[in-house]
């Protein structure tokens, strides 16, 4: 009898084991490399919550995408590049359709592997700017806009649309001493020599993120006309606190989109008035998109956010929502192109190249005022969405500019060169010859 029970149990386990992969293939495996722990958790967590909640909303409201449920599992990296590579290998082995590296350092490590393994890499609003070149980086995508696009738009924002106005000025570039923080330096150097401004890079080390007195003493000594910040995690809040402490004029302090983060500004409140950030998204909690997330996820108790603490309204959370919107649009495009709801990696790659979120589609999604329209293609893996300059009014961010657009005439030649250099340094490198 015991032997019979054992045999039945074994058979059941074996059957389940065989059945599991089949069942799993019926879900769209879109794992995320999250960092809810470690020194960067403060900014990682709201983005990850946003990404997760949109996918949960699609599962709850629509039963997934075109009837296929989404498996949006997380692999914790702690923003650590080595752990990120481990997560990449793990999710790849689990049959992931996409890799979302969530750190420029991890992106750079995984970039060559993703090409060989033929896994689409989705790095929304971060990563290596040259990934826009779809001919060279067939498997990598960084919509809706790249860091080089961001740097170009910031300079337009602070020069009133004419970079020649920066001639003779000094711009301090306060950045995390990390591949992410260094990413826009080639473009900024190129623009500095073209338009005659002085670029002063000021790196902030990991252990100095919360003690930036030396960096702000340098800013006090050098008296730059503008401070452009490329920070992440606790670095941003500390920099804003130091700027207040050293009485640096807030209207001369501008950040890339990650600096549009309410909790960092709440550390200084009214004293942060005038601080600006370039942001490709704008929080709109009353939009149809956000109301659906509220109804199906937050109010249903399926979200990890603390809505009472204002996390639902945060720019970072809603940015995370939009990151998943773009990925879901890619899945839909892939399903349409492939003619099947169960897609594979190559089909998702094609889907990403066919993302077209125009004004009409934004309206359908219920996100009209939350981001600018953009489209990707075989050769354009970024989309180059425009972005707004937002300003802290003492309690919230408000839009203070029309949509800004990056200067392609400067960026594209740099991208071409960087992509060619990358391919040459990583031979044999497979190009996508289908792209023009």
């Amino acid at each position, binding site marked *: 009898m015991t032997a019979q029970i054992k045999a039945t149990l074994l058979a059941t386990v074996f059957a389940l084991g065989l059945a599991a992969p089949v069942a799993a293939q019926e879900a769209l495996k879109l794992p995320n490399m999250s960092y809810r722990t*470690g020194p960067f958790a403060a900014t990682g*967590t709201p983005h990850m919550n946003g990404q997760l909640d949109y996918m949960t909303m699609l599962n709850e409201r629509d039963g997934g995408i075109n009837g296929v449920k989404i498996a949006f599992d997380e692999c914790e990296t702690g923003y650590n590049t080595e752990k990120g590579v481990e997560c990449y290998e793990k999710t790849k082995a689990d049959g992931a359709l996409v890799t979302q590296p969530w750190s420029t350092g991890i992106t750079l490590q995984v970039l060559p592997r993703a090409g060989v393994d033929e896994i689409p890499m989705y790095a929304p609003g971060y990563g290596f700017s040259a990934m826009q070149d779809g001919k060279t980086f067939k498997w990598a995508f960084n919509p809706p806009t790249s860091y080089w696009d961001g740097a170009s738009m910031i300079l337009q924002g602070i020069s009133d649309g004419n970079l020649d106005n920066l001639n003779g000025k000094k711009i301090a570039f306060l950045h995390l*001493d990390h591949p992410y923080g260094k990413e826009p330096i080639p473009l900024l150097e190129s623009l500095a020599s073209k338009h005659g401004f002085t670029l002063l890079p000021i790196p902030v080390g990991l252990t*100095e993120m919360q003690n930036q007195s030396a960096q702000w*003493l340098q800013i006090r000594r050098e008296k730059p006309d503008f401070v452009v910040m490329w920070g992440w995690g606790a670095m941003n809040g500390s920099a804003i606190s130091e700027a207040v402490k050293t009485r640096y004029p807030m209207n001369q302090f501008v950040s890339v989109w990650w600096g549009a983060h309410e*909790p960092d500004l709440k550390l200084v409140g009214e004293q942060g008035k005038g601080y600006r950030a370039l942001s490709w998204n704008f929080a709109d909690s009353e939009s149809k998109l956000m109301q659906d997330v509220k109804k199906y996820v937050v109010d249903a108790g399926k979200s990890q956010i*603390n809505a009472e603490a204002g996390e639902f309204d945060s720019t970072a959370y809603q940015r995370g929502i939009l990151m998943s919107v773009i990925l879901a649009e890619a899945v839909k495009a892939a399903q349409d192109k492939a003619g099947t709801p169960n897609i594979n990696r190559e089909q998702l790659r094609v889907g990403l190249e066919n993302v077209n979120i125009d004004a009409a589609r934004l309206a359908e999604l219920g996100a009209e005022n939350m981001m600018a329209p953009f489209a990707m293609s075989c050769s354009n893996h970024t989309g180059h969405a425009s972005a707004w300059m937002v300003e802290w009014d003492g309690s919230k961010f408000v839009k203070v500019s029309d949509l800004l657009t990056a200067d392609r005439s400067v960026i594209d030649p740099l991208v071409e060169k960087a992509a060619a250099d990358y391919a040459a340094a990583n031979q044999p490198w497979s190009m996508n010859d289908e792209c023009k």
Partner: protein
Amino acid sequence: MDFIHSILIQPFLDMADAPDFLIQVLWEGIVSGVLYALIALGFVLIFKSSRIFNFAQGIMVVFAALTLVGLHQKGIPAWLALPMTLGVMLLLAIAIERVVLRPLVNQPDIILFMATIGITLFLIGLGETIFGGENKRMITEELGIPTDSYIFEPFGGLVMIEQRDITAVVGAVVLVVCLLLFLNKSKMGRAIRALGDDHQAALSVGISLSTIWVLVWFIAGMIALATGIVWGARAGVSFALEVIALKALPVLMLGGLESVSGAIIGGLMIGILEKLFEIYWGQPLLGGNTESWFAYMLALVVLLFRPQGLFGERIIERV
């Protein structure tokens, strides 16, 4: 020749040129040094009494600060949240002694060190689960810490000194004086030192290992709370505070693992010297961010000549 001038002459000319700026740099160095010393003190206390290198000191800073802010967010007034946080740190000390340390008595040091890594990972998870990962504002005003600045104009220049930094320095000095008095004048303090000197001898005269371990972990928790408040007041409370503990390592290498005064002097030395080096040599000549490595280089140089650190005890063993 220009190179030698830029290293040996120019930095001093810059200092003489703007003495107000030099005063500001020195003050910032002192504040940083005091904060480094506070973290290092937590390590020293536990090492002194138990020979355990407490890897969890950094996360204890985060956990204590998060508990304080978290309790206040739950509507508990600051004056009550502070002793309640101390209560939580006491419970944590008791739990660590009971669950982690007691079963590992007489195990090699490396096992105990590994156990503190386990405590670190546990506290990261627990803190994240209870308080979340968001950056939180330290309840500076609610604790009565002044937040204005004093402005001085020496030599026709400008020096700004934050009142909260003065509070941090004064608070740290008071804490250290109390700690030294406790260690040197009280019965319990002498027991801690006796355990540090010789476990077996201390046990043979009736000193309770369990009580002392709970006590030192609690004191380390108190220091962690003080550190969390002053660091958190500067830039908010988040898990990023944990990495600041890395700055305590060169302080310990410099000051010695067993010396309270070594931790303080080592912290101040590193704080002031790394700031001076960064501003007058690092930024103009090396592109900045020398603070990431300068302290380790300084400690390395000291270790070449004094392997026990500046104030560590020289161990002589008969063979």
